[in-house]
């Protein structure tokens, strides 16, 4: 690890200032992604701005038809939350599938979506529920938030403070974990709210995406059979040591059908 300045601001505004003033600053939430890359000397920020002392960034509230989760809320807190389990059980279930107990007790929602790892779980819930990402300065719709591999709509130094997940009629998340890391090789989040169906796929491509054909088929008839015929093209999918693009394409279908079957 290279040396860096460690700053622990007491407010979001101070955090933004600290970052703006740094030559090459990085926020740190749970540190589960940041610290390993620091240790491997892959990232060498001049300043690490720790978000853990800022009041109000962690917490869960269900109000106005939405589950509002603070950016600094750990995966373990979401997984264990009775309020989340009552409102959107699939969200609590998803949080409980992330990594291992150590990771779940340190890693945060804000860190996960800001990082936008192609194999991360939360992006599937954010996109699959049509959530709103709230930052210091604005609200960003899920559909606009995840832009590319490890890329988001966040501006430099823009701090995620909260994510508002609308409560759907029903939702399910089915994940095929990577046996080594337990990240998703493919994870599919399906939700139904009124007539609208969302199908969000993580792990399969460079960035979480919605599967429009499945959404259309499910809007017409919400059953696993309805999407049995949807062919997933392997062309743009990830192809790596852990799974080929064809296998991922196949898994998207299987995971989606299983998710639908859970709630149909």
């Amino acid at each position, binding site marked *: 690890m290279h040396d860096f300045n460690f700053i622990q601001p007491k407010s979001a505004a101070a955090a933004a200032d600290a970052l703006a003033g740094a030559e090459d600053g990085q926020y740190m939430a749970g540190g589960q992604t940041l610290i390993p890359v620091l*240790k491997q*000397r892959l990232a060498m920020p001049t300043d690490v701005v720790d978000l853990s002392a800022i009041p109000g960034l962690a917490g869960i509230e269900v109000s106005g038809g939405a589950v509002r989760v603070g950016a600094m809320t750990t995966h373990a807190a979401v997984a264990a939350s009775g309020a989340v389990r009552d409102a959107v059980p699939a969200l609590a279930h998803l949080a409980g599938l992330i990594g291992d107990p150590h990771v779940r007790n340190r890693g945060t929602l804000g860190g996960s979506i800001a990082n936008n790892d192609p194999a991360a779980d939360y992006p599937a819930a954010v996109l699959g529920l049509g959530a709103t990402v709230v930052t210091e300065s604005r609200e960003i719709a899920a559909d606009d938030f995840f832009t590319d591999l490890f890329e988001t709509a966040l501006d430099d130094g823009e701090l995620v403070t909260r994510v508002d997940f609308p409560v759907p009629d029903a939702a399910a998340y089915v994940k095929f974990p*990577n*046996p*080594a890391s337990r990240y998703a090789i493919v994870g599919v989040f399906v939700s139904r709210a009124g007539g609208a169906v969302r199908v969000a796929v993580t792990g399969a491509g460079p960035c979480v995406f919605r599967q429009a054909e499945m959404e259309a088929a499910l809007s017409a008839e919400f059953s696993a059979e309805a999407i049995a015929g949807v062919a997933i093209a392997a062309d743009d999918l990830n192809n790596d040591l852990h799974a*080929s693009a064809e296998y991922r394409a*196949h*898994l998207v279908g299987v995971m989606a059908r299983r998710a639908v079957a859970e709630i149909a």
Partner: protein
Amino acid sequence: MNKVSFGDTVRRAEDHRFLTGKGNYIDDITMPGQAHGVVVRSPYAHARINGFDADAARRAPGVLLVVTGADWAAQGFGPIPTKSAVKENRDGTPIAVPDRPCLAHDRVRYVGEGVAFIVAETRDQARDAAELLDVDYAPMDAVTHPVKALEPGAPQLHDGIADNLCVDWELGDAEATEAAMRAADRIVRLELHNNRVTGAPIEPRGAIASYDAGTDSYLMYQATQNIHANRNTTAEILGIEADKIRHVGPDVGGGFGAKNSVYPEPALVLHAAKTLNRPVKWVNDRAESFLSDTHGRSQYSTVELGVDDDGTFRALRTTTVGELGAYCGTVGAFTPTGGSARTQGGPYGFEAMYYSARAGFTNTAPLDPYRGAGRPEGSFQIERIVEKAARELGIDPVELRRKNLIPKERLPLKTAMGLDVDCGDFPTVFEQALAMTDRVGFQARKAASEAAGKRLGFAIAPYLECTGGMPKEHAVVTFTADGSAHLAVGSQSTGMGHETALPQILAATLGLDMARIGFTQADTDATPLGGGHGGSRGMEMGGNAVLQTAGEIIEKGRAIAAHLFETDVDKIDFEDGSFFEKDTNHIASMTEIIAASFDPERLPDGMEPGSLNTGSTFERGIISIPNGCHAAEVEVDPDTGAIAVTGFWVVDDFGTIINPMLADGQVMGGVGQGLGQALMENAVYDEASGQLVTGSLIDYALPRADDMPPMTLEYYEGAPTKKNPLGVKGAGEAGCCGAPPAIVNAVLDALDGLGVTHIEMPLTPEAVWRAIDAAGS
């Protein structure tokens, strides 16, 4: 008084320390004034080194010493030798052994090979300096595939070694095997790959050493499995007397073979400690562990079984290509040759067997023993071909195995591979295992599984093992007048529980209180020799050394007792911790005799106070033959290819069981690693770049607790071996022999009817899905 016997489940004395974070591992050891060393490692799989520019690194803050490969070469230190027991090719010529320097200076041959050692005040300063070291590399073509490395036109690793070939070797009767093959009704043939894996011990390798200029001697702590041999070899490299180095293995966090080899770093640490006259510590990080630890397995084999239509086995022939990596490791050429040959054929009878192996160099980390060291490869070869034969012949795989197991009446026998099988009862062990598996309930479980869209499969896999490792072991017992004892042994635990099992043997034999026996292992000052850990030798060698030493103590105790009772030694018996004279009321406990042994008044002529202290070297005659039978039930999800091992049963014949809980731990751990190899572990090098693709735990899949099946373990204790006084057969590696074939064959059984006849390990979900897909189209 905490009285123990053989066969008692004595809880592990070491666990409290380990589980509460009080273990004393390399990085826990601090010496006053210590500096920190890091190895600069090659980023290239194959490159010429045109030169080093170390100026910037030398000037970096905190840097104390930079030793480049060129600096090392200029010192004239020796290469790291190989100690392979196979030294000749089939034609009698010597095997090809390239020089392996501790630091490369003119050429690197694998990613992770050391090119410089940098010592600084702190580890981070040493790392910073490492980034400043300029090595002028000229990349060359690399070859990482063991079969392709031997093909014409492959990039060549070593000048003067043709075709990258290290060894070309055979065992068995080729002609008799060919004749028996021809006579058989059919020959079943299978090509298979035994995947390359790495031990991934929880504690990475490391060492810390100090130098004493006054006595020109060293003290080195190292995370190693083999302190005496490694000290001797490291001294040989540096050209110093071995007894100038006190070498200690503190608590060592796992080894599995990967800490058995002699590595470059200890020599670098000793050299730096002397040069700087300061203690120097070096500890690998996890990435370095993946790159620079020895890997294991890696064989491409063709297995042929000559079998009659009624299922009678006639002949077995295995033709294999193994892999050494860039250089010969410490055991080197032996593993894919002799190591794999010995247990060929498993516990089955054959008219003839023949094993033929070639192994060569690749641009990868050196390979050396990994838990089983060739025998799991052999076990996989025979059990896979038997399963395939059963399906080709239309015979129930259970029946085919039952038919060909060597019956008890034929023991002792020498196998066609020269293995001395003295005792055991393979059919009884097989039936005992089968009886545990609830075959009756299987059909109902299978139906339930199918109703859920899954497929259930079952397989049984008997195995034949043999032990190995250093043939001598030493134990020393010293007493204190208050009756307490201290036991030191040269065998070593890297987590297996010797701190419990070996004092248990001493306590049970002498009738001492377990709680009053101290324990030291892995310290060259504590025992004059020691064979460390390897080849499942812990109980066979360490245990017998303790027993033998205890026996000598009893003899001395009888002399003291005879003196006290004023009678003849031959009238003194020892039983249950007490010396007594028959038909009298003369009796003295071991504790009383210990007290007497410190009192000149109470000692017979010729015995000095303290002379009950005893050190003794046990020497093995012939290696023992553990054997047993594994069975697995698996459930396959045909939609995804995912596998769950839903049941696992083991019966082992380890001879006498000293501590069943410790034996269970060995079996479970071995099954875990066998499961890992079968289903997920795979060390993969990119063929084009020679980079290790699975260089972290994010990419190298190790099994976790939730991957482990429910396990039922039993022992067959009807055949203690007479090859050693305890009657034990090694337990450490057996799990790795039985689990891979049991699991793989069970998966193939689950896929029965789909036309899938073989899937290479690891059986990842994608591999299974593809096999189903390919068979269906």
